[in-house]
């Protein structure tokens, strides 16, 4: 096949209106990050493979595009940006006052099996809030995410909140081995209440039936305060209880701010258990079938690069945001007309360019139409 027409799997070209829309969405998000005092950090496109393995674990680092440096060291195209931020904060930002607020925008590259159709190149926008362990930082990043969505006109977005210690607490209580724990997690992710109930019957006979059934139902029912209430009724131990208390406090604040409509409690979300240590969340918008962003608290990551520090953050997939805006929101006015139509500069070569330069001094849009 001709290399002129063939494009490697998973990469994309953007042009025309789509470029304008992408840049608009990116600019808007970055303005909002800046508005909450997040400073932009520009990160390298590749770094040592070892750095990503240290940050995200070997398994995820396996999915990188790797190549060898001139000295033989193994490099990788960045598969995510958080590890790069974490390393920077742990080393170069040691003396800066906490919390550190950083934001970024840029491509990441991942080879994700097994979906051949999946993209390999993703553009992410995100923030990291580092050095503050408490609920204040958790709520702050949720509000930043929500502002990005509403400022892009994505009414009807939903941010589903969960907490890793809810699941971890349950698994602790049941004293499951690693294999059973994985099985439990998969059943929960499927939202299969009947199968979960059978699993608990077999492996957790110590739980009374009413509580067991309550737990099995719970994972199928994302909700609002009702979900918190139901969770309280079946709570099994301290760890789960603390997770629910934390979510309840966050939710109460969001409700006071009039944002309850856009937030859900979803205790059936067990994503990112290896990585996150507290609050987790995922962002959904109508007419876009997959999550367009997510994040959470990851208090263990920075310790991989130096002194341990609490941190919370999130990222949006630009493809998701742009797709959602294209389907849900009316296009922003500056994209439609893109300013005034250009002034044509025609005629004699020197005169046409002189005219154009004059107009450019006034920042007018010009288009050269000299024919030779």
């Amino acid at each position, binding site marked *: 096949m001709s290399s002129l027409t063939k494009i490697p799997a998973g990469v994309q070209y953007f042009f025309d209106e789509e470029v304008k829309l992408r840049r608009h969405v990116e600019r808007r998000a970055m303005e909002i990050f800046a508005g909450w005092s997040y400073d932009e950090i520009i990160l390298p496109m590749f770094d040592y493979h070892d750095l990503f393995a240290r940050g995200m674990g070997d398994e995820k680092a396996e999915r990188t595009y790797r190549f060898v440096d001139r000295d033989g060291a193994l490099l990788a195209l960045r598969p995510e940006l958080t590890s790069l931020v974490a390393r920077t904060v742990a080393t170069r930002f040691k003396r800066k006052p906490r919390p550190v607020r950083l934001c970024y925008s840029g491509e990441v590259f991942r080879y994700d099996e*097994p*979906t051949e159709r999946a993209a390999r190149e993703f553009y992410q926008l995100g923030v990291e809030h580092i050095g503050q362990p408490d609920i204040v930082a958790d709520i702050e990043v949720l509000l930043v995410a929500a502002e990005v969505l509403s400022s892009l006109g994505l*009414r*009807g977005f*939903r941010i*589903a909140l969960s907490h890793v210690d809810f699941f971890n607490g349950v698994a602790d209580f049941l004293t499951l081995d690693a294999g059973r724990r994985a099985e439990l997690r998969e059943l929960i*992710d*499927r*939202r*299969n*209440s*009947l*199968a979960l109930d059978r699993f608990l019957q077999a492996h957790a006979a110590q739980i009374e039936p009413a509580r067991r059934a309550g737990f099995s139902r719970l994972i*199928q*029912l*994302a*909700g609002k305060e009702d979900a918190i209430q139901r969770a309280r009724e079946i709570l099994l131990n301290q760890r789960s209880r603390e997770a629910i208390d934390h979510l309840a406090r966050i939710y109460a604040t969001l409700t006071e701010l009039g944002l309850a409509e856009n937030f*859900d409690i*979803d205790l059936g979300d067990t994503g990112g258990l290896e990585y996150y240590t507290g609050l987790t969340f995922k962002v*959904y*918008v*109508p*007419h*876009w*079938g*997959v*999550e367009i962003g997510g994040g959470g608290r990851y208090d263990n990551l920075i310790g991989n690069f130096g002194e341990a520090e609490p941190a919370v953050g999130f990222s949006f997939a630009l493809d998701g945001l742009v797709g959602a805006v294209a389907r849900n929101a009316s296009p922003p006015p500056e994209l439609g007309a893109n300013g005034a139509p250009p002034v044509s500069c025609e005629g004699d070569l020197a005169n046409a360019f002189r005219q154009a330069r004059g107009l450019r001094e006034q920042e007018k849009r010009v288009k050269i139409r000299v024919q030779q």
Partner: protein
Amino acid sequence: MSSNKLTIALSKGRMQEDALAMFARAGIVVDESELNSRKLIIDSRDGQYSFVLVKPGDVPTYVEYGVADAGICGHDVLLESCAGVHEPLDLKFGRCRIAVAARREVVGKPYNLLATVRVATKYPRIATQYFHAKGVPIEVINLSGSVELAPLLGLSDRIVDLVETGRTLKENGLEVIEEITESTARLIVNRASFHLKRDAVRALISQLTEILEKE
């Protein structure tokens, strides 16, 4: 806010009939006239559901991308697709097995004289995973139908295929060697719809759960 009407993708063919029968028992009725039409999108009588009729293997795709909020398809199809969807209910109908089969004469004998086993199948992913888990290197031969033919003509040593009654296998001199997994119809739900159309999804799951518990 998106509407609360749910779009449900159904596998065309027998599973569609079983699925619609189950919906009817749950009070979600599709008129006969709609069914007999050639429409690919049909509405339930109460207008709360629209059904899209697609090829079985496409159901997870429609649901994963969220153009259908939910779908009904076999577990076999889900295993093969690896779609990122919720799978809240085993609907119990459409029961069959995915099995490894071979010509009766070679059952129990080594695959062939070579190290690599040729496996003909409509399920390349399931077949690869299964044999690799056993440490057997295979060459997958991807067929889209009449997989039983492959060992008869010497195209493959083994097949991995759906077995319902086993009659087709038997009549062609083939025998099941090992069952890989059992498959039944599943309700699957898009991850975003699970949140964005929560009430409608919840109602659907509980209506179907009620039917399952009765049966």
